[in-house]
């Protein structure tokens, strides 16, 4: 039997976290064309927090959603164009209608892992337009396997044709992935996917554990370009999958070329696991916080590691970037 894995590549979306959402249209065009050439099935584009998320809260985007999507659309012929959509940031009227009009093919509606019912209307709208709709549970390390199954089942009923859990904090060990993905595969009718972050150096290993536990969809980015310590390094993943006998439809050589292009043209720095990222992963903090924590910590001269610890203790979720300021203010106050 052919073991097919669907790959979604958010280099141009999660990667935006790594450069404070400063990817330019030119860079989007270059990488989209390279990924298309390599046969990457889905190329995800946009602000790091997805559609309609450009904000002072999580970072202003250099380019507008419209320009980014139109540019990517022009440079993708085989690959599908994907977006990440978080209700609470993006609305149907303000953002989603236009994105679909521009020609987005795959729409992943995301919520914090315990809040799936905010995705009902958005998933419904995507299905109404006949587009591919997926559900995404973010920060999935914060919920038990049982809760994840319940929330994922809701998304399935709302019309999601696959459910992706994100290890947004890079907090998982392979045993966690095995437990959660197995439970989801058992509890769901539609395919399960996994999106890793590399804070503890586990991204590729966790991704492989996910498919060995029954997942059929994996996310990965060129050179791991993504929030915090970065994502699963896609060219490595493709090579490993090939070695294991899985089929992705991606041409390995051309994927290697695309990653070289990405390193050369779109990254100032290739993601590495910085000391802070390790603490961030251990504390279970949303990877998209990294740039903000670094900046605010140095501005107010506090130890970023203390900031991560405190954010983790307060169980802050993605989208609550404003809490970083409050935590820093508290640390200063307590120091006095």
């Amino acid at each position, binding site marked *: 039997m052919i073991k097919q894995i669907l790959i979604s590549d958010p280099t141009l979306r999660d990667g935006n976290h790594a450069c404070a959402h400063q990817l330019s249209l030119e860079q989007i065009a270059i990488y989209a064309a390279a990924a298309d050439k390599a046969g990457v099935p889905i190329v995800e584009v946009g602000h790091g927090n997805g559609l309609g998320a450009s904000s002072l*809260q999580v970072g202003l985007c250099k380019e507008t959603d419209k320009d980014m999507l139109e540019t990517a659309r022009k440079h993708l012929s085989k690959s599908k164009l994907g977006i990440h959509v978080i209700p609470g940031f993006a609305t149907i009227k303000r953002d989603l209608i236009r994105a679909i009009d521009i020609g987005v093919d795959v729409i992943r509606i995301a919520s*914090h892992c315990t809040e799936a019912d905010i995705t009902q209307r958005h998933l419904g709208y995507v299905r109404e337009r006949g587009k591919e709709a997926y559900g995404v549970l973010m920060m999935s390390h914060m919920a038990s396997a049982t809760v994840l199954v319940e929330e994922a089942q809701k998304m399935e009923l709302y019309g999601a044709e696959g459910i992706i859990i994100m290890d947004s904090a890079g907090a998982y060990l392979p045993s966690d992935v095995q437990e959660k993905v197995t439970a989801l595969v058992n509890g769901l009718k539609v395919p399960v996917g996994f999106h890793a972050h590399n804070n503890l150096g586990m991204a590729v290993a966790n991704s492989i554990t996910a498919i060995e536990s029954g997942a059929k969809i994996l996310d990965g980015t060129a050179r791991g370009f993504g929030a915090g310590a970065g994502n699963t390094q896609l060219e490595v993943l493709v090579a490993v999958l090939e070695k294991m006998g899985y089929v992705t439809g991606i041409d390995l050589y051309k994927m290697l070329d695309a990653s070289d292009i990405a390193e050369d043209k779109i990254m100032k720095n290739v993601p590495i696991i910085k000391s802070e990222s390790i603490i961030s992963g251990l504390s279970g903090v949303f990877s998209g916080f990294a740039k903000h924590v670094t900046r605010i910590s140095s501005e107010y001269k506090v130890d970023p590691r203390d900031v991560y610890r405190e954010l983790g203790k307060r169980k*802050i*979720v993605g989208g*609550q970037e404003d*809490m970083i300021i409050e935590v820093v203010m508290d640390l200063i106050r307590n120091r006095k």
Partner: protein
Amino acid sequence: MKKLRVAILGSGNIGTDLLIKIQRSEFLECVLFIGRNLSSPGMAKAIAMGVKVSDESINAIVKNPDAVDLIFDATSAKDAKIHWEVLDKLGKIVVDMTPAKLGVFCIPAVNLDEVLEHRNVNMITCGGQASIPIAYVIGKTQKNVEYIEVVSSIASRSAGPATRLNLDEYIDTTENGIKHFSKVPRTKAILNLNPADPCIDMQTTIFAQVENPDMDSLLYEVDIMVKKIQEYVPGYSLLVPPIFENGRIVIMVKAQGLGDYLPKYAGNLDIINCAAIAVAEQYSKNFNNIK
């Protein structure tokens, strides 16, 4: 002084919490608590408190229109539209708690006097009640504000099925409210649900992009505004006073509930109710010529 006679339409969480708050008011008397089902928890509470109740919905007012001066509509946007058609003809004042947007937007700390000229007052949204007064101060004290953004985080448990289904409407209404009061053309509202246990208090951050911020007058005016809000929302506080960070003004406020019918963490529901009561009391004071 004659207390203004009010009725509450809608016996859910908002309606029941309003009822308890009204019992404390010097200016208001709840003469009728209206729902559709006498066995709902809200109704049971009202009956236990000795308040007159009805399960006949809007008909309860149509049957005896002279018994009531002002109606709080705490049903749904859809029902509020139908109710207003009836109540408008009866010449009643309506304080609309739903996102129906039929009447004049009101933030008591900003335009309380203006609403007296209208008979339908809309309370915008919970996030709007917390953030708009601050956005208004930014608009008032700063020159050339390019953009204002407000981010609210509320406890997951304080967001019921209707809130969850209507996040888009919440965002749309809040953005309109900010534009209306701050006069800043570009605005954005973001809502986060946080499931942390114990539940978090409602917290709102207001960001603004301003070329050359005047932080002194902002600090001064924000302080005055917060005190003004605290007069009708006791649980409102300034968490992080105005700072200028990374090219943006940042102000954080918090709204803790009074814990009347709903738990203290439900500050989002509390703040909109406190504001609605402030509006109703203003009508009462006006009728009684109290300044």
